[in-house]
């Protein structure tokens, strides 16, 4: 997934914290016009990866380039194009919501006032509320507003929907899809709520113990894995099913549901017909694919 048009280029990046290796030889490119989902268990290295992109973390080895500049040396010109929502929701506690918006706004020349008003209305933000008093969900909504209203070329979202209610999540995801319409932008989103992000992402990066174990287009991933329902038309299913690359199999007398990788539909139908079965190919959700890959 490497290319010259990449906004972010990470090359063999390793990050060692005191007790653990958070990133292990990670190579990744973020292209314009894509929404990339970064998936992984807690401690897999998702936040660490995002923090390297904005230069807040420095790698022990390897190189991170953002907008053509060494991430550790990003200046106002590059940072003006980056929106970042961090999972902790750390904001300026003694300001009101309105004060913080006004403060952040002055740093950006391309602040979209209409979008700001839309966020305030949709997210039901009270401008006179002190940030200290906001709930985690409200803080997250405000963080999203602050990161998106200047329409950044690169939007990094670290668990942005974890504290949002279902309606706010749906609105937020709609906005993401609207935002990506101009092809010169890129969005990177890390989340545990896979059912939500699968609606918007077009590329998947799965991390495990600091390593990238899967990096491909989401459609490609969906084509690669499938869940197949096999129903025997002649009594019990045979003891051994003739399909290749079965990852998981749940069977019950005349029926079985198998998960396969790298299948071909025509070959599958022919094999099923030989053992007197009919098959139904069921699409797999991102959650199911993730569980298969991570194991």
């Amino acid at each position: 997934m490497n290319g010259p048009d990449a906004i972010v280029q990470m090359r063999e990046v390793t990050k060692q914290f005191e007790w653990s290796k958070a990133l292990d030889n990670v190579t990744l490119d973020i292209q314009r016009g894509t929404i990339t989902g970064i998936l992984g268990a807690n401690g897999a290295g998702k936040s660490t990866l995002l923090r390297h992109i904005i230069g807040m973390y420095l790698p022990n080895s390897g190189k991170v380039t953002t907008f053509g500049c060494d991430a550790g040396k990003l200046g106002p010109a590059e940072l003006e194009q980056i929106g970042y929502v961090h999972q902790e929701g750390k904001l300026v506690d003694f300001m009101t919501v309105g004060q913080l918006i006004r403060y952040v706004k002055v740093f950006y020349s391309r602040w979209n006032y209409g979008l700001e008003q839309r966020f305030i209305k949709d997210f039901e933000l009270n401008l006179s509320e002190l940030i200290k008093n906001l709930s985690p969900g409200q803080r997250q909504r405000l963080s999203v507003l602050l990161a998106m209203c200047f329409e950044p070329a690169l939007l990094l979202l670290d668990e942005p929907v974890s504290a949002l209610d279902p309606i706010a999540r749906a609105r937020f995801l709609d906005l993401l899809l609207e935002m990506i319409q101009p092809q010169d932008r890129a969005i990177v989103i890390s989340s545990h709520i896979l059912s939500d992000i699968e609606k918007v992402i077009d590329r998947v990066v799965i991390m495990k113990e600091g390593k990238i174990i899967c990096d491909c287009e989401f459609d490609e991933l969906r084509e690669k894995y499938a869940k197949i329902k096999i129903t025997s038309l002649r009594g019990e299913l045979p003891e051994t099913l003739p399909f290749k690359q079965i990852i998981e199999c749940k069977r019950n007398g005349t029926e079985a549901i198998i998960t396969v990788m790298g299948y071909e539909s025509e070959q599958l139908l022919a094999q099923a017909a030989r053992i007197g079965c009919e098959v139904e190919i069921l699409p797999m959700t991102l959650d199911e694919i993730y569980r298969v890959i991570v194991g």
Partner: protein
Amino acid sequence: MRELKAGLGLVFGTMAGWLYFFLVLCIWFLSMFVAPYSNIRDILETGFTWFIIYLMFLPAWIGAPILGVGYRKVLGCGGLFCVPRLEKGMKRFAIISGFLIALMSSLPLLLTKGLSWPERYVYIALSFTLVTALFFACSIPSPSSNKRNLVSLMTWVLWVVIFVRLVFGGEAGIKPLEGWPWLLAAGIFLCVIHSQPYRDKQIKIAHRQLAGSSTDINEQPQLAKLRIASAVEQFFIVRLSRCSKNQKHLWGAIYLCLGIHLSRWKQIFSLALVLMFFFGFMPEESTGLIVLFVMMSILGWGQTFRLPVHSQMLVQGGRSQRICGTIAAAIGFSLAVGLVFVVITGVSQLTALIIPNFVFRGQQLTFSPLSMYSAYIVIGIVPVFFGIALYFERAPLLTAFVVILISIPAIVFLPGIISAVFGWLSITLIVISCWAFLIFVSRSICREKDLILQTDKS
């Protein structure tokens, strides 16, 4: 006991926790070692009254907030505050610790020279009571009221003063001069605990958020006091809008650091005026006290500092901008605090012309105006504090401890330096060194370290 052990494991499971207690013990042993060679009369007469406070109160001063923060940390922890018997166990632990620390803090007085036995009892009782008051005001959270800690401490102090006057009276009681250390101690402790209610509130809010309920409406008026005033916001937003792109992060850093304090300028000046009278009647060698007080005040305000170095907001700029932003914030803060000192010093100079000398219980009290050196010292103290706070960003208690440690030589040596022939020159060199220290620390952190701390969870 297992619940208590599990809870305490959180507090004392870290190296830092043990380091604090090791240091407290070291200071206590030092106090015990120094006490037999100290003559309290000499100490009082030479004006070094603060030394006694240090000697007796430092263990409690350090120990209490550590235990207090630990206590809150355990009770505020989502998975632990509902564990059966944990809260009771923690309280019991805090009470026993408080008693032991108060007892330990009073023991050096048994060995100090220059006290007759009735007086010695008074001092030991005073020390024990005040340390106990300090300890509980600092360490026990008050979920029901913000003012409870302050009120309990004030009550303790008043009780001690009244009790000693009634029971012992006359010569054995507190003479005005000898009373200063205790009043001073109370003042300092009030400053230390001033920051505590907000922590309590945070725990309350954390509990409610964990329980899924919204913030209690009743606490809004109290929390609402700590917010940026419209005029202050207007001033900075106009500056930020007009300045060039390269200057925005400088003004932004100053705004975040100073905005909240400028919004409370009336309260700050009122407090400074009260302190002006307090310090005005202190002995002439009280410069060290001013240093100590400023150190502790800055420490108290430290909670509201928003230095750009570790900010997760990208508007603070890249690594280079964060160095400049930190220096700008420190300069802005020093100038603001320095200005307060200059104004208060000016007022004290004028006041000295008006206030006559008066005699109180046989003691002649003279109001001495504050020296302009104080403002100069502040300009040196602020960068040191900022530098230490940056370096120990993950361990605010260690920051407090290091600040206290540094203030000891400052208190001991500064009066001598100021009165030396090249006083101004020495002070200038010290101030320059302090700023060089801040530049070095902020530069090394911004250039070489991770700017988001792994422990950032709030």
